[in-house]
Structure formats: C-alpha cells, structure tokens
C-alpha cells in the first residue's frame, strides 16, 4: 500500500541550527508508526516540520502532495491533525468550544462529529461546559485527541500523548487511539517516550538519535532487537 505520509531526506531547523539531519520516513495508510528516541533526538522537531511549524528542507509528501513550504493552517485543512506537545488546550475556553475549534475547517459535519467524540470520550460530554484548563491531564489529552479528530483527518499526529500521565491513564489513551484508528480510518504518527507501550500498539517504528534515523522496521522487529531492548525498553 502507498504511504500516506513520506519524508525524503528532511532536515529541520530551530532558527539557524539544524536539529534533524536528512531523515527518510514513511507512514502507511491505515497504519500506526512510532518515532522513538531519547530527549533531544529530534522527534518533536520532525513532527513540527511536517506541520510547517519549523523551517525544513527536503520533501514532505502527504497523499502524494507536497506539504513543505505550506502554512500550518493549510496543512491542517488538507487532513493532517496535529496534537502538539503540551496538548495545545485552549484553557480559557470550554470543552465544547475547544471541540468547535477542532471542527473549524469542517463546519458542516461539526455537530455530528462532536456527538461521535462524546461517544468515544463520555467524560468530555460530562464536562462540556467546563473550561479546558480545569480538566485533568488525562482529560486534556482526550480533549486534544477529540479536537484533532474533529478535523476529519487522514493522518493523526500525536506528540507524546503519555506525557505527565499516570500509567493507567496512559493505557486507556493508547486503547482509545487504537480503537479510533480502526473506526475513523485514520493513520497515526506517534512520538512516544513509553517505548514498551508504543511498540505494542504500533506496526512500524523508527529510532532517532541526535537527528538521525539509526534503526527502523516493524515494531515487532525493533521490540525484539536486543540492543534496542537494552537501551530503550530496559530489559
């Protein structure tokens, strides 16, 4: 199957300094790909390059069309939904308003989509009139995922959904992401520190070190690689 997202020798920059040094990467249609690596390996920067939030060189192809050099807001419009590091919650707006903003580019289907999101995340329905900032970390992560899905994306980009959450909550989040991937027919690109859990859910994985891809393959193959196990899985 053709990849939904393809990076061809992509470099990414923070200001003048190059952080990602020409990586190749692909996400299969309907698949879940995970980017692993230590802090500062360039995972978040790679995701930001895809969404035009940092300067990049090289080709970024989404469904065969170039994304590089397009504005962030246009990339959102073509079907890439990015849940940023820190979740990007509009803390002063209500849960419902956060979801309405997610549906900004798809106003016609927004009411129906919102009901579907409340189906996935009943807690958000309960809290729909509360301010986004009053939610717990796990609830905010759910809100961020729901907000992204309101865009009817073909690719969901998640930047460390487990960040700052209790292990049980993280498991719930991963379960719901797997379910959403199937039911919403969305491909997923994920950055994650929790390598064990990520490799269980994903079907493909890339390992980044200081801006280079140092290993890639099926999630299972990476999980079985003794070196990677020692360095990233801790057993």
């Amino acid at each position, binding site marked *: 199957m053709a990849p939904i997202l393809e990076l061809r020798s992509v470099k990414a920059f923070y200001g003048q300094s190059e952080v990602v040094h020409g990586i190749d990467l692909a996400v299969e249609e309907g698949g879940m790909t995970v980017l692993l690596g230590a802090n500062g390996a360039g995972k978040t920067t790679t995701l930001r390059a895809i969404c035009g*939030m940092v300067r990049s060189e090289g080709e970024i192809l989404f469904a065969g069309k170039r994304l590089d050099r397009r504005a962030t807001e246009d990339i959102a419009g073509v079907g890439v*939904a990015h849940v940023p590091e820190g979740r990007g919650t*509009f*803390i*002063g*707006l209500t849960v419902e*308003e956060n979801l309405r903003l997610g549906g900004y580019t798809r*106003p016609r289907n927004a009411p129906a989509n919102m009901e579907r999101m409340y189906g996935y995340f009943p807690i958000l329905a309960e809290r729909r009139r509360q301010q986004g900032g009053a939610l717990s970390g796990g609830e905010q992560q759910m809100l961020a995922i729901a*907000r992204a899905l309101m865009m009817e994306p073909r690719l969901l980009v998640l930047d460390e959904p487990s960040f700052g959450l209790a292990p049980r909550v993280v498991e719930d989040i991963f379960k719901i992401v797997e379910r959403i991937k199937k039911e919403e027919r969305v491909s997923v690109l994920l950055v994650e520190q929790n390598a064990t859990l990520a490799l269980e859910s994903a079907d493909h994985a890339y390992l980044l070190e200081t801006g280079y891809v140092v290993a890639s393959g099926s999630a299972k193959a990476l999980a079985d690689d003794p070196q990677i196990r020692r360095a990233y899985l801790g057993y």
Partner: protein
Amino acid sequence: MHEFWQQVFSGLAAGSVYASVALALVMIYRSTDLVNFAQGEMAMFSTYIAWTLVNAGMPFWGAFAVTLIVSFVGGMVIERVVIRPVENAPVLAAVVVTIGLLLIFNSVAGWIYTYTVQDFPSPFPDRPLFHALITTRDLGVIAVTLIMLVLLFLFFRFTSTGLAMRAAAQNPASARLCGIRVGRMLAIGWGLAAAIGATAGIMVAPVLFLDPNMMGGVLLYAFAGALLGGITSPVGAVVGGLIVGVTENLVGTYLIASQLKLTVALALIILVLVFRPNGLFGTAIVRRV
C-alpha cells in the same frame, strides 16, 4: 440627592464612551499584547470622516454606518501594513509604532481639517427626561453603547469567526493547528477595535466638539478604565470605563474643580497599578497542571 443622581447618569453617558474605547484597547491587548496608543486618534479620524459625510448632506445614521465600515477596513489595513512588520519585534518597538500612528493621525487630521473646533451634530435631541434626571442625548449614547456591546458579545460567543478570534488570541500555535488563519483574525480584531472607537468618537463629539485633540483625554480615561477592569478582561473594560465616567463626574462636582478632572484618571491609573495590577476582573483562568 437629585443633583447626585443627575451626575451619576451623565457620568454613565461619558462612561459608556470610555468603556467603548477601553474595550477596543483590551481587544488589541489580548490578541497582540500591545497597548494601542493610537486608538483615540484613530477614533478621532473616523469621527472626521462621519463629519465630512454629514456635511456632504448624508443622513446621520447613514454617515454613521459608512464610517463604521470605513473604520473597520482602515483598522485591518493598519494591522496588515504597519503592525504586522513589528509583530515579532520587541514590545517597545511595537509601542513606538502605535505612538507614531498617534502623531501621524493627529497631524494629518490637523492638516486636512485644521485645528479649528467644529460643531458635530447629535442624532439625539437634548431634552430633559424623568424630572431632569437624564437627558435624551445621554440616554441615546448609553443605548447605542449597549446595543454595540450586545452585538459584540453575540459575535464572540456564537459565531465561528468570533470563537476563532478568541482562540487565536489565547493560543496562536494551537489555533493554527486547527486551521485558523491567525493573521487574518488579528486584522479583524484591529478592524473591530477601530469600528468600536469610531462609535465612541461619534457619540462623544457632540459633547466635546470636534478637533484633532478631541480624544486625548478620552483615551486617558479609557486607559484608566481598562486598567481598573483588568487589561485582559472585556467585561472589566466596560465596567471600568463606566466606573471611571461616574467617578470623574462626581469628583468634579463635589470634590475638586472640574478643570482638574483629568487628574482623577491619572490618580486611578497609579492606584490600580500599585495596589491591584490585575484590576477588578483580571485573568482568572482556572489552571491545573
């Protein structure tokens, strides 16, 4: 007692003008973290446009509507052309730009219309009402302000553009990821602020008379009102503006000579900054980490 209430009501009329300008200041502050010192002069210039149209024989409310539209477009153009280039510059640079705009509008208005004080027509007759408690003119000014506030509230609360503007002001990066054109939202914000200012200018001109320096004092009162309400709160701006209007009137009547009224605004600004920098309604966003 009768005189007291008279002063309160006429204070509310003046206060609603301050409230409008304060609201314009707060809107721009929230979206760009910038105090637009040119807000008053932009409003003054808009008022001259209305004056020109009325003198050309246009009916008052027609001139009012045309002026609002021209001001809205003008505000957007100012954001695009003058403010955008300094968007990422240090705050001081942007502040200097707005002060530059203040001087430019003031001088250009003087150059086109001269510094001669002009009569400005009021759309409302000046008759006493309710045993002379309030005049029809003051009531009209208050009513126009209220209608404007309600329309703005509905716009921000219920339209998708209004919601997108609030989102862009709060978290521009996240707004972009939702597909919102943040730059356009900022421009619309400047347009709205200019139109709100224009309304204030047109409402106050029959009282203050029109000249290029007409809005100087108003801007100061509005600034005091915005600070009192909390510079980040639209509701606070309106309440603060009204409080300043009433206080100014009462203090001018009972405590000090009315020539010294402007010091009330200055004293208030200092008091707020020293004792309650967040104002009455400053940001109280619930946050959990």
